[in-house]
């Protein structure tokens, strides 16, 4: 496997195991390379739209579906609480972990809480809706806004 793939997998497995973003030092330890090599890989993965980095390039803002920062979208799976980037990604956490969970979010207009059981067959019946303000062709123009 190449370094970028090793780093990508190390990032995703860190999120899955700990429900928080890894530091470059933690990834360096997992992959057995030095920190500058990890940071170079971060830049290549950012260019491939695998990662969204914080300013400075050393901290992971998004490794979709996982969020490196707290958000209103939380997937509770196997006793851990994972932050997701958006409504799509909070379902994506359950799909990625391949374990049933409970999704917590809210109605953006009223603040009414959403609590939804999600199995590997999908969410429990619900008439809530998903809305995306940005057309698909422009999602990556500003992925944090999207």
């Amino acid at each position: 496997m190449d370094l970028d793939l090793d780093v990508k997998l190390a990032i995703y497995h860190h999120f899955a195991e700990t429900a928080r973003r890894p530091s470059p030092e933690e990834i360096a330890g997992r992959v057995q390379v030095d920190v500058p090599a990890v940071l170079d890989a971060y830049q290549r993965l950012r260019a491939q739209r695998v990662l969204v980095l914080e300013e400075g390039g050393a901290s992971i803002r998004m490794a979709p579906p996982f969020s490196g920062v707290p958000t209103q979208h939380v997937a509770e799976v196997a006793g851990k609480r994972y932050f997701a980037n958006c409504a799509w990604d909070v379902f994506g956490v359950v799909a990625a972990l391949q374990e049933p969970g409970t999704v917590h979010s809210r109605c953006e207009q009223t603040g009414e809480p959403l609590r939804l059981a999600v199995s590997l067959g999908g969410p429990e019946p619900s008439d809530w809706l998903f809305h995306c303000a940005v057309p698909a062709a422009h999602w990556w123009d500003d992925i944090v806004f999207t």
Partner: protein
Amino acid sequence: MLFFRSEEKVQEWCRAQGIPVRPLVRLEQLWGLATAWYATRLQPDSRRPQPAEIREIFARLGLEGDFWDPQADRFGQG
């Protein structure tokens, strides 16, 4: 990419934000999107869908039209 309790609440939110109401997605459709994008994300051979695959995924889920076209140039950020 947000959740709403009802179509009425989407309309209220869009009016307040000054943006158009976009196509609404049911949660079972959203689950289809989530699994298509992320079900293999922790595996070594995982990769992001390419535009032709994205169109197929959207069409399979009943999400069609320029809004869902990953390469459409007819929409602004509006």
